[in-house]
Protein backbone atom coordinates (compact mmCIF):
# COMPACT_ATOMS: atom_id res chain seq x y z
CA UNK A 1 0.00 0.00 0.00
CA UNK A 2 1.35 3.42 -0.87
CA UNK A 3 1.55 6.18 1.66
CA UNK A 4 -0.06 9.26 0.24
CA UNK A 5 0.13 12.82 1.41
CA UNK A 6 -3.49 13.79 1.45
CA UNK A 7 -4.91 17.20 2.02
CA UNK A 8 -6.11 17.20 5.60
CA UNK A 9 -9.75 18.25 5.73
CA UNK A 10 -10.57 21.24 7.90
CA UNK A 11 -11.19 19.90 11.36
CA UNK A 12 -14.27 21.09 13.17
CA UNK A 13 -13.49 22.61 16.53
CA UNK A 14 -16.09 20.46 18.28
CA UNK A 15 -15.36 17.36 20.31
CA UNK A 16 -14.24 14.49 18.09
CA UNK A 17 -17.32 12.58 16.98
CA UNK A 18 -17.85 9.16 18.48
CA UNK A 19 -18.87 6.37 16.13
CA UNK A 20 -22.10 4.40 16.25
CA UNK A 21 -20.54 0.95 16.77
CA UNK A 22 -18.91 -0.26 19.97
CA UNK A 23 -16.50 -2.24 17.80
CA UNK A 24 -16.38 -3.98 14.42
CA UNK A 25 -17.62 -7.57 14.23
CA UNK A 26 -17.03 -10.73 12.25
CA UNK A 27 -20.09 -12.78 11.23
CA UNK A 28 -20.84 -15.97 9.33
CA UNK A 29 -21.08 -15.36 5.56
CA UNK A 30 -24.86 -15.72 5.57
CA UNK A 31 -27.74 -16.01 7.98
CA UNK A 32 -28.68 -13.83 10.95
CA UNK A 33 -26.39 -11.01 12.04
CA UNK A 34 -25.16 -12.81 15.16
CA UNK A 35 -21.42 -12.23 15.44
CA UNK A 36 -18.90 -15.05 15.80
CA UNK A 37 -17.82 -13.56 19.13
CA UNK A 38 -20.90 -12.24 20.93
CA UNK A 39 -20.93 -8.53 21.76
CA UNK A 40 -22.57 -7.22 24.92
CA UNK A 41 -25.43 -4.85 24.25
CA UNK A 42 -24.69 -1.38 25.60
CA UNK A 43 -26.71 -0.72 28.77
CA UNK A 44 -28.63 2.50 29.33
CA UNK A 45 -26.30 3.58 32.15
CA UNK A 46 -23.22 3.16 29.93
CA UNK A 47 -24.94 4.91 27.05
CA UNK A 48 -25.78 7.93 29.21
CA UNK A 49 -22.35 7.92 30.85
CA UNK A 50 -20.75 7.93 27.42
CA UNK A 51 -22.90 10.60 25.74
CA UNK A 52 -25.07 12.28 28.35
CA UNK A 53 -28.86 12.54 28.12
CA UNK A 54 -30.29 13.38 24.74
CA UNK A 55 -31.77 16.86 24.22
CA UNK A 56 -35.47 17.21 23.39
CA UNK A 57 -36.39 17.24 19.71
CA UNK A 58 -37.86 20.36 18.14
CA UNK A 59 -38.01 22.21 14.82
CA UNK A 60 -34.51 23.62 15.37
CA UNK A 61 -33.06 20.12 15.02
CA UNK A 62 -33.94 20.11 11.30
CA UNK A 63 -31.53 23.01 10.73
CA UNK A 64 -28.83 21.29 12.76
CA UNK A 65 -29.22 18.12 10.71
CA UNK A 66 -29.22 20.11 7.49
CA UNK A 67 -26.01 21.91 8.44
CA UNK A 68 -24.46 18.55 9.37
CA UNK A 69 -25.23 17.34 5.83
CA UNK A 70 -26.73 14.08 7.06
CA UNK A 71 -27.99 11.76 4.32
CA UNK A 72 -29.86 8.48 4.70
CA UNK A 73 -27.88 5.29 5.39
CA UNK A 74 -30.58 2.90 4.13
CA UNK A 75 -29.38 2.96 0.54
CA UNK A 76 -31.12 5.95 -1.04
CA UNK A 77 -28.77 8.63 0.37
CA UNK A 78 -31.57 11.21 0.52
CA UNK A 79 -30.75 14.28 2.67
CA UNK A 80 -32.50 13.65 5.99
CA UNK A 81 -33.46 17.31 6.46
CA UNK A 82 -35.27 17.26 3.10
CA UNK A 83 -37.52 14.41 4.25
CA UNK A 84 -38.14 16.02 7.63
CA UNK A 85 -39.00 19.40 6.14
CA UNK A 86 -41.52 17.88 3.80
CA UNK A 87 -43.04 15.99 6.75
CA UNK A 88 -43.28 19.26 8.70
CA UNK A 89 -45.31 20.89 5.93
CA UNK A 90 -48.32 18.72 6.77
CA UNK A 91 -50.37 18.33 9.90
CA UNK A 92 -52.26 15.02 9.51
CA UNK A 93 -51.20 12.16 11.82
CA UNK A 94 -47.67 10.93 11.22
CA UNK A 95 -45.98 7.63 12.02
CA UNK A 96 -42.18 7.72 12.28
CA UNK A 97 -40.42 4.43 11.57
CA UNK A 98 -36.89 3.34 12.43
CA UNK A 99 -36.28 0.82 9.68
CA UNK A 100 -34.15 -2.08 10.87
CA UNK A 101 -35.38 -4.57 8.26
CA UNK A 102 -32.29 -4.65 6.10
CA UNK A 103 -33.28 -6.84 3.23
CA UNK A 104 -30.07 -7.23 1.27
CA UNK A 105 -29.06 -10.77 2.31
CA UNK A 106 -25.37 -9.85 2.69
CA UNK A 107 -25.97 -6.69 4.72
CA UNK A 108 -25.70 -6.99 8.49
CA UNK A 109 -24.83 -3.45 9.57
CA UNK A 110 -28.27 -2.42 10.84
CA UNK A 111 -28.78 -5.59 12.84
CA UNK A 112 -25.26 -5.22 14.23
CA UNK A 113 -25.99 -1.64 15.29
CA UNK A 114 -29.25 -2.70 16.96
CA UNK A 115 -27.49 -5.49 18.84
CA UNK A 116 -24.67 -3.22 20.04
CA UNK A 117 -26.32 0.14 20.71
CA UNK A 118 -30.12 0.04 20.71
CA UNK A 119 -30.27 3.18 22.89
CA UNK A 120 -28.59 5.29 20.22
CA UNK A 121 -31.22 4.24 17.67
CA UNK A 122 -34.07 4.73 20.16
CA UNK A 123 -32.74 8.23 20.99
CA UNK A 124 -32.74 9.08 17.29
CA UNK A 125 -36.27 7.77 16.83
CA UNK A 126 -37.48 9.74 19.87
CA UNK A 127 -35.81 12.89 18.52
CA UNK A 128 -37.41 12.42 15.09
CA UNK A 129 -40.78 11.78 16.67
CA UNK A 130 -40.62 14.92 18.85
CA UNK A 131 -39.28 17.09 16.04
CA UNK A 132 -42.00 16.06 13.62
CA UNK A 133 -44.84 15.83 16.15
CA UNK A 134 -45.45 12.17 15.28
CA UNK A 135 -48.48 10.28 16.56
CA UNK A 136 -46.69 6.93 16.51
CA UNK A 137 -43.04 5.81 16.73
CA UNK A 138 -42.15 2.33 15.52
CA UNK A 139 -39.02 0.22 15.15
CA UNK A 140 -39.60 -2.07 12.16
CA UNK A 141 -37.75 -5.40 11.95
CA UNK A 142 -37.75 -8.62 10.00
CA UNK A 143 -39.67 -11.29 11.94
CA UNK A 144 -36.62 -13.60 11.99
CA UNK A 145 -34.27 -11.01 13.51
CA UNK A 146 -34.53 -12.33 17.06
CA UNK A 147 -31.22 -10.75 18.16
CA UNK A 148 -32.26 -7.19 17.29
CA UNK A 149 -35.65 -7.68 18.87
CA UNK A 150 -34.16 -8.97 22.12
CA UNK A 151 -31.73 -6.05 22.32
CA UNK A 152 -34.47 -3.49 21.60
CA UNK A 153 -36.96 -4.91 24.05
CA UNK A 154 -34.39 -5.04 26.84
CA UNK A 155 -33.42 -1.44 26.03
CA UNK A 156 -37.05 -0.27 26.06
CA UNK A 157 -37.56 -1.98 29.42
CA UNK A 158 -34.49 -0.17 30.81
CA UNK A 159 -35.85 3.15 29.56
CA UNK A 160 -39.25 2.52 31.17
CA UNK A 161 -37.60 1.60 34.49
CA UNK A 162 -35.48 4.76 34.34
CA UNK A 163 -38.62 6.77 33.47
CA UNK A 164 -36.85 8.40 30.54
CA UNK A 165 -39.03 11.07 28.98
CA UNK A 166 -39.98 10.54 25.34
CA UNK A 167 -42.59 9.03 23.07
CA UNK A 168 -43.88 5.49 23.48
CA UNK A 169 -42.03 3.22 21.04
CA UNK A 170 -43.43 0.05 19.47
CA UNK A 171 -41.34 -2.77 18.03
CA UNK A 172 -43.13 -4.31 15.05
CA UNK A 173 -41.92 -7.28 13.00
CA UNK A 174 -42.74 -7.60 9.33
CA UNK A 175 -42.49 -10.70 7.17
CA UNK A 176 -39.16 -12.21 6.16
CA UNK A 177 -39.06 -10.94 2.61
CA UNK A 178 -36.71 -8.85 0.48
CA UNK A 179 -39.38 -6.17 0.07
CA UNK A 180 -40.41 -6.01 3.75
CA UNK A 181 -37.95 -3.14 4.23
CA UNK A 182 -39.37 -1.09 1.34
CA UNK A 183 -40.78 2.15 2.72
CA UNK A 184 -44.22 2.04 1.06
CA UNK A 185 -44.60 -1.61 2.10
CA UNK A 186 -43.84 -0.63 5.72
CA UNK A 187 -46.33 2.26 5.54
CA UNK A 188 -48.95 -0.07 4.10
CA UNK A 189 -48.37 -2.69 6.83
CA UNK A 190 -48.47 -0.17 9.68
CA UNK A 191 -51.77 1.18 8.32
CA UNK A 192 -53.24 -2.31 8.64
CA UNK A 193 -52.69 -3.49 5.07
CA UNK A 194 -50.46 -6.18 3.58
CA UNK A 195 -46.68 -5.66 3.62
CA UNK A 196 -46.53 -4.85 -0.08
CA UNK A 197 -45.24 -1.80 -1.92
CA UNK A 198 -47.88 0.68 -3.08
CA UNK A 199 -48.06 3.05 -6.04
CA UNK A 200 -47.31 6.71 -5.57
CA UNK A 201 -50.33 8.24 -7.28
CA UNK A 202 -52.69 11.09 -6.49
CA UNK A 203 -55.50 10.12 -4.16
CA UNK A 204 -59.04 9.88 -5.52
CA UNK A 205 -60.96 12.94 -4.25
CA UNK A 206 -63.44 10.84 -2.25
CA UNK A 207 -60.91 8.37 -0.77
CA UNK A 208 -60.01 8.44 2.92
CA UNK A 209 -56.46 9.74 3.52
CA UNK A 210 -53.99 7.02 4.45
CA UNK A 211 -51.82 7.78 7.50
CA UNK A 212 -48.53 9.49 6.70
CA UNK A 213 -45.37 7.56 7.37
CA UNK A 214 -41.77 8.71 7.50
CA UNK A 215 -39.30 5.84 7.24
CA UNK A 216 -35.71 6.38 8.31
CA UNK A 217 -32.94 3.81 8.45
CA UNK A 218 -31.72 2.88 11.97
CA UNK A 219 -28.14 4.00 11.29
CA UNK A 220 -29.41 7.38 10.10
CA UNK A 221 -31.31 7.77 13.38
CA UNK A 222 -28.26 6.75 15.42
CA UNK A 223 -26.36 9.56 13.68
CA UNK A 224 -29.23 11.96 14.43
CA UNK A 225 -28.81 11.05 18.13
CA UNK A 226 -25.13 12.08 17.96
CA UNK A 227 -25.65 15.25 15.88
CA UNK A 228 -28.44 16.42 18.21
CA UNK A 229 -25.95 16.19 21.10
CA UNK A 230 -23.66 18.64 19.35
CA UNK A 231 -21.22 16.26 17.73
CA UNK A 232 -20.16 17.04 14.17
CA UNK A 233 -21.37 14.65 11.49
CA UNK A 234 -18.16 12.64 11.27
CA UNK A 235 -18.61 11.56 7.61
CA UNK A 236 -18.26 7.91 8.42
CA UNK A 237 -20.49 5.05 7.39
CA UNK A 238 -21.18 1.46 8.33
CA UNK A 239 -20.35 -1.17 5.73
CA UNK A 240 -20.71 -4.94 5.43
CA UNK A 241 -17.73 -6.52 3.67
CA UNK A 242 -18.09 -10.07 2.39
CA UNK A 243 -14.92 -12.15 2.66
CA UNK A 244 -14.08 -15.68 1.55
CA UNK A 245 -14.93 -17.10 4.97
CA UNK A 246 -16.94 -14.46 6.82
CA UNK A 247 -18.64 -11.10 6.74
CA UNK A 248 -17.40 -8.09 8.64
CA UNK A 249 -19.30 -5.03 9.74
CA UNK A 250 -17.18 -1.96 10.35
CA UNK A 251 -17.40 1.81 10.45
CA UNK A 252 -15.21 3.57 7.91
CA UNK A 253 -14.52 7.20 6.99
CA UNK A 254 -15.97 8.27 3.66
CA UNK A 255 -12.44 9.19 2.57
CA UNK A 256 -11.32 5.54 2.93
CA UNK A 257 -10.71 3.79 -0.38
CA UNK A 258 -12.53 0.60 -1.31
CA UNK A 259 -9.23 -1.27 -1.72
CA UNK A 260 -8.05 -0.26 1.74
CA UNK A 261 -11.35 -1.26 3.36
CA UNK A 262 -11.30 -4.69 1.73
CA UNK A 263 -7.61 -5.04 2.69
CA UNK A 264 -8.45 -4.12 6.30
CA UNK A 265 -10.87 -7.06 6.46
CA UNK A 266 -8.19 -9.44 5.16
CA UNK A 267 -9.81 -9.66 1.75
CA UNK A 268 -6.64 -8.96 -0.23
CA UNK A 269 -4.39 -11.57 1.33
CA UNK A 270 -4.76 -13.76 -1.76
CA UNK A 271 -4.91 -12.33 -5.30
CA UNK A 272 -7.00 -9.20 -5.68
CA UNK A 273 -10.62 -9.92 -6.66
CA UNK A 274 -11.67 -9.63 -10.31
CA UNK A 275 -14.78 -7.58 -9.57
CA UNK A 276 -16.93 -6.29 -6.74
CA UNK A 277 -20.68 -6.06 -6.25
CA UNK A 278 -21.43 -2.74 -4.57
CA UNK A 279 -24.65 -2.04 -2.68
CA UNK A 280 -25.97 -5.61 -2.56
CA UNK A 281 -27.97 -7.87 -4.86
CA UNK A 282 -29.86 -4.85 -6.20
CA UNK A 283 -26.56 -3.02 -6.63
CA UNK A 284 -23.90 -2.64 -9.29
CA UNK A 285 -20.98 -4.78 -10.44
CA UNK A 286 -17.70 -3.01 -11.03
CA UNK A 287 -14.32 -4.11 -12.30
CA UNK A 288 -12.02 -4.33 -9.26
CA UNK A 289 -9.08 -2.49 -10.83
CA UNK A 290 -11.39 0.37 -11.81
CA UNK A 291 -12.78 0.94 -8.31
CA UNK A 292 -10.06 -0.10 -5.86
CA UNK A 293 -9.26 3.60 -5.41
CA UNK A 294 -12.93 4.66 -5.02
CA UNK A 295 -13.55 6.53 -1.76
CA UNK A 296 -16.61 5.27 0.14
CA UNK A 297 -18.46 8.43 -0.66
CA UNK A 298 -21.78 8.33 -2.47
CA UNK A 299 -21.06 11.40 -4.60
CA UNK A 300 -17.77 9.87 -5.75
CA UNK A 301 -19.53 6.56 -6.49
CA UNK A 302 -22.27 8.28 -8.50
CA UNK A 303 -19.59 10.12 -10.44
CA UNK A 304 -18.54 6.70 -11.72
CA UNK A 305 -22.07 5.49 -12.38
CA UNK A 306 -22.14 3.45 -9.16
CA UNK A 307 -23.87 3.64 -5.80
CA UNK A 308 -22.78 2.39 -2.40
CA UNK A 309 -26.41 1.60 -1.57
CA UNK A 310 -26.59 0.49 2.04
CA UNK A 311 -22.86 -0.25 2.19
CA UNK A 312 -22.61 -3.84 0.99
CA UNK A 313 -19.19 -4.67 -0.50
CA UNK A 314 -19.04 -8.14 -2.06
CA UNK A 315 -15.77 -8.89 -3.89
CA UNK A 316 -15.69 -11.72 -6.44
CA UNK A 317 -12.46 -13.70 -6.56
CA UNK A 318 -10.46 -14.44 -9.70
CA UNK A 319 -11.62 -17.58 -11.44
CA UNK A 320 -15.23 -17.29 -10.28
CA UNK A 321 -17.87 -16.89 -12.99
CA UNK A 322 -19.60 -13.52 -12.92
CA UNK A 323 -22.32 -14.74 -15.27
CA UNK A 324 -23.19 -17.59 -12.89
CA UNK A 325 -23.28 -15.19 -9.94
CA UNK A 326 -25.48 -12.70 -11.78
CA UNK A 327 -27.83 -15.51 -12.86
CA UNK A 328 -28.18 -16.77 -9.28
CA UNK A 329 -28.79 -13.27 -7.92
CA UNK A 330 -31.30 -12.50 -10.70
CA UNK A 331 -33.11 -15.74 -9.86
CA UNK A 332 -33.24 -14.73 -6.21
CA UNK A 333 -34.54 -11.24 -7.04
CA UNK A 334 -37.17 -12.63 -9.44
CA UNK A 335 -38.40 -14.83 -6.58
CA UNK A 336 -38.59 -11.77 -4.34
CA UNK A 337 -40.89 -9.75 -6.61
CA UNK A 338 -44.10 -8.65 -4.89
CA UNK A 339 -45.74 -9.86 -8.12
CA UNK A 340 -47.95 -6.80 -8.30
CA UNK A 341 -46.61 -5.10 -11.43
CA UNK A 342 -46.55 -6.84 -14.83
CA UNK A 343 -43.08 -5.75 -15.93
CA UNK A 344 -41.58 -7.12 -12.68
CA UNK A 345 -43.82 -10.20 -12.47
CA UNK A 346 -43.02 -11.32 -16.03
CA UNK A 347 -39.80 -9.45 -16.72
CA UNK A 348 -37.64 -10.62 -13.82
CA UNK A 349 -38.27 -14.36 -14.36
CA UNK A 350 -37.60 -13.85 -18.09
CA UNK A 351 -34.32 -12.11 -17.32
CA UNK A 352 -33.37 -14.74 -14.73
CA UNK A 353 -34.00 -17.71 -17.01
CA UNK A 354 -32.20 -15.99 -19.89
CA UNK A 355 -29.18 -15.49 -17.62
CA UNK A 356 -29.37 -19.07 -16.35
CA UNK A 357 -29.18 -20.36 -19.91
CA UNK A 358 -26.35 -17.96 -20.66
CA UNK A 359 -24.51 -19.20 -17.54
CA UNK A 360 -24.83 -22.76 -18.84
CA UNK A 361 -23.63 -21.76 -22.30
CA UNK A 362 -27.02 -22.46 -23.82
CA UNK A 363 -28.16 -19.01 -24.87
CA UNK A 364 -28.14 -18.44 -28.61
CA UNK A 365 -27.55 -14.96 -30.02
CA UNK A 366 -31.23 -14.03 -30.23
CA UNK A 367 -31.63 -14.89 -26.56
CA UNK A 368 -28.90 -12.41 -25.68
CA UNK A 369 -30.68 -9.77 -27.74
CA UNK A 370 -33.87 -10.52 -25.85
CA UNK A 371 -32.02 -10.08 -22.55
CA UNK A 372 -30.97 -6.60 -23.64
CA UNK A 373 -34.49 -5.75 -24.77
CA UNK A 374 -36.04 -7.03 -21.54
CA UNK A 375 -33.59 -4.99 -19.45
CA UNK A 376 -34.90 -1.88 -21.19
CA UNK A 377 -38.51 -3.02 -20.87
CA UNK A 378 -38.36 -3.66 -17.11
CA UNK A 379 -36.27 -0.79 -15.73
CA UNK A 380 -38.29 1.98 -14.12
CA UNK A 381 -41.67 0.33 -14.66
CA UNK A 382 -42.54 -1.02 -11.24
CA UNK A 383 -44.35 0.72 -8.40
CA UNK A 384 -41.24 0.25 -6.25
CA UNK A 385 -37.56 0.15 -7.18
CA UNK A 386 -37.21 -3.62 -7.03
CA UNK A 387 -37.07 -4.11 -10.82
CA UNK A 388 -34.67 -1.17 -11.10
CA UNK A 389 -32.21 -2.80 -8.71
CA UNK A 390 -32.44 -6.12 -10.54
CA UNK A 391 -31.92 -4.61 -14.00
CA UNK A 392 -29.06 -2.45 -12.72
CA UNK A 393 -27.32 -5.51 -11.31
CA UNK A 394 -27.82 -7.51 -14.54
CA UNK A 395 -26.84 -4.68 -16.90
CA UNK A 396 -23.66 -4.01 -14.94
CA UNK A 397 -22.80 -7.73 -14.96
CA UNK A 398 -23.18 -7.82 -18.76
CA UNK A 399 -20.66 -4.96 -19.01
CA UNK A 400 -18.17 -5.96 -16.32
CA UNK A 401 -18.13 -9.63 -17.34
CA UNK A 402 -18.44 -8.85 -21.08
CA UNK A 403 -15.64 -11.20 -22.05
CA UNK A 404 -17.19 -14.10 -20.10
CA UNK A 405 -20.61 -13.27 -21.52
CA UNK A 406 -19.13 -13.54 -25.03
CA UNK A 407 -17.55 -16.92 -24.28
CA UNK A 408 -20.75 -18.24 -22.70
CA UNK A 409 -22.80 -17.01 -25.67
CA UNK A 410 -20.54 -19.07 -27.94
CA UNK A 411 -21.28 -22.17 -25.90
CA UNK A 412 -17.98 -22.05 -24.03
CA UNK A 413 -18.81 -21.36 -20.37
CA UNK A 414 -15.76 -20.38 -18.31
CA UNK A 415 -14.10 -22.82 -15.91
CA UNK A 416 -15.87 -21.34 -12.90
CA UNK A 417 -19.37 -21.63 -14.41
CA UNK A 418 -21.87 -23.38 -12.18
CA UNK A 419 -19.78 -22.87 -9.02
CA UNK A 420 -21.43 -20.13 -7.02
CA UNK A 421 -19.25 -18.08 -4.74
CA UNK A 422 -21.54 -15.42 -3.29
CA UNK A 423 -23.96 -16.52 -0.56
CA UNK A 424 -27.17 -16.36 -2.59
CA UNK A 425 -30.07 -17.84 -0.55
CA UNK A 426 -30.58 -21.54 -1.17
CA UNK A 427 -34.03 -21.24 -2.73
CA UNK A 428 -32.53 -19.40 -5.70
CA UNK A 429 -29.58 -21.77 -5.99
CA UNK A 430 -31.96 -24.72 -6.24
CA UNK A 431 -33.55 -23.18 -9.30
CA UNK A 432 -30.18 -22.90 -11.00
CA UNK A 433 -30.09 -26.56 -12.04
CA UNK A 434 -29.59 -27.61 -15.66
CA UNK A 435 -32.24 -26.30 -18.01
CA UNK A 436 -34.16 -29.14 -19.60
Amino acid at each position, binding site marked *: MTVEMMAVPLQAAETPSPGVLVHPVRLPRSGPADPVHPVTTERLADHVARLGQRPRGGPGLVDVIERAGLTGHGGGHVPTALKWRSALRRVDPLTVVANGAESEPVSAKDATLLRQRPHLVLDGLALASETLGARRAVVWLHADDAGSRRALEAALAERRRARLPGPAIEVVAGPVHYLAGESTAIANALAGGPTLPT*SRRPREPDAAPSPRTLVQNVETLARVALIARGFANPQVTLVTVLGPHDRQVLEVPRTARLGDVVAATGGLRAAPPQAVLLGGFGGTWADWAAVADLPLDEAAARGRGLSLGAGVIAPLRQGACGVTEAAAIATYLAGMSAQQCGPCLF*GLPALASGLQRLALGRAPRRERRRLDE*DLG*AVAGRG*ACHHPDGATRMIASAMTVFARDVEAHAHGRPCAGAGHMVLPVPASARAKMGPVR
Partner: protein
Amino acid sequence: MSGGAMSGGAMSPESGPRLRVDPIACAAVGVCVQVAGAVVDLDRWGYPVVPTRALTPGEVEQSDRAVRACPRRALWLER
Protein backbone atom coordinates in the same frame (compact mmCIF):
# COMPACT_ATOMS: atom_id res chain seq x y z
CA MET B 1 -35.97 16.46 -16.58
CA SER B 2 -33.10 16.98 -18.97
CA GLY B 3 -33.90 14.00 -21.21
CA GLY B 4 -37.42 15.25 -21.92
CA ALA B 5 -36.72 17.51 -24.85
CA MET B 6 -34.25 15.07 -26.38
CA SER B 7 -36.53 12.06 -26.36
CA GLY B 8 -39.57 14.04 -27.43
CA GLY B 9 -37.97 15.87 -30.34
CA ALA B 10 -38.10 19.57 -31.07
CA MET B 11 -41.90 19.75 -30.89
CA SER B 12 -42.19 18.38 -27.38
CA PRO B 13 -42.50 20.82 -24.49
CA GLU B 14 -40.12 20.54 -21.51
CA SER B 15 -42.84 20.81 -18.94
CA GLY B 16 -46.51 20.02 -19.24
CA PRO B 17 -48.92 17.16 -18.79
CA ARG B 18 -47.59 13.62 -18.56
CA LEU B 19 -49.38 10.30 -18.85
CA ARG B 20 -48.80 8.06 -15.85
CA VAL B 21 -49.48 4.36 -15.24
CA ASP B 22 -50.15 2.76 -11.88
CA PRO B 23 -48.38 -0.55 -12.54
CA ILE B 24 -50.14 -2.26 -9.61
CA ALA B 25 -53.62 -1.35 -10.84
CA CYS B 26 -52.80 -2.23 -14.46
CA ALA B 27 -53.84 -5.74 -15.52
CA ALA B 28 -52.73 -5.59 -19.16
CA VAL B 29 -56.30 -5.29 -20.45
CA GLY B 30 -54.96 -3.27 -23.37
CA VAL B 31 -57.83 -0.86 -24.04
CA CYS B 32 -55.38 2.04 -23.75
CA VAL B 33 -53.42 1.02 -26.82
CA GLN B 34 -56.63 0.72 -28.82
CA VAL B 35 -57.81 4.25 -28.06
CA ALA B 36 -54.39 5.94 -27.79
CA GLY B 37 -52.07 3.97 -30.05
CA ALA B 38 -49.98 7.03 -30.84
CA VAL B 39 -49.10 7.55 -27.17
CA VAL B 40 -49.22 4.08 -25.63
CA ASP B 41 -47.14 1.11 -26.68
CA LEU B 42 -47.30 -2.42 -25.24
CA ASP B 43 -44.35 -4.45 -23.97
CA ARG B 44 -44.09 -8.11 -24.88
CA TRP B 45 -46.22 -9.07 -21.88
CA GLY B 46 -49.04 -6.71 -22.86
CA TYR B 47 -48.40 -3.93 -20.34
CA PRO B 48 -48.48 -0.29 -21.47
CA VAL B 49 -45.31 1.71 -22.07
CA VAL B 50 -45.95 5.46 -21.99
CA PRO B 51 -43.64 8.37 -22.81
CA THR B 52 -41.77 9.74 -19.79
CA ARG B 53 -41.64 13.23 -21.39
CA ALA B 54 -44.35 15.89 -21.44
CA LEU B 55 -47.14 15.37 -23.97
CA THR B 56 -48.04 17.50 -26.97
CA PRO B 57 -51.64 18.85 -27.08
CA GLY B 58 -52.66 16.14 -29.59
CA GLU B 59 -51.22 13.45 -27.35
CA VAL B 60 -53.05 14.88 -24.36
CA GLU B 61 -56.34 14.42 -26.19
CA GLN B 62 -55.56 10.75 -26.94
CA SER B 63 -54.24 10.15 -23.44
CA ASP B 64 -57.41 11.55 -21.97
CA ARG B 65 -59.37 8.95 -23.92
CA ALA B 66 -57.12 6.19 -22.55
CA VAL B 67 -57.52 7.47 -18.99
CA ARG B 68 -61.32 7.35 -19.32
CA ALA B 69 -61.36 3.98 -21.12
CA CYS B 70 -59.14 2.01 -18.71
CA PRO B 71 -61.37 -0.45 -16.82
CA ARG B 72 -58.78 -0.68 -14.05
CA ARG B 73 -58.44 3.11 -13.69
CA ALA B 74 -54.71 2.56 -13.91
CA LEU B 75 -53.91 5.65 -15.96
CA TRP B 76 -53.96 9.32 -15.06
CA LEU B 77 -52.81 12.60 -16.48
CA GLU B 78 -50.39 14.55 -14.35
CA ARG B 79 -50.81 18.25 -15.18
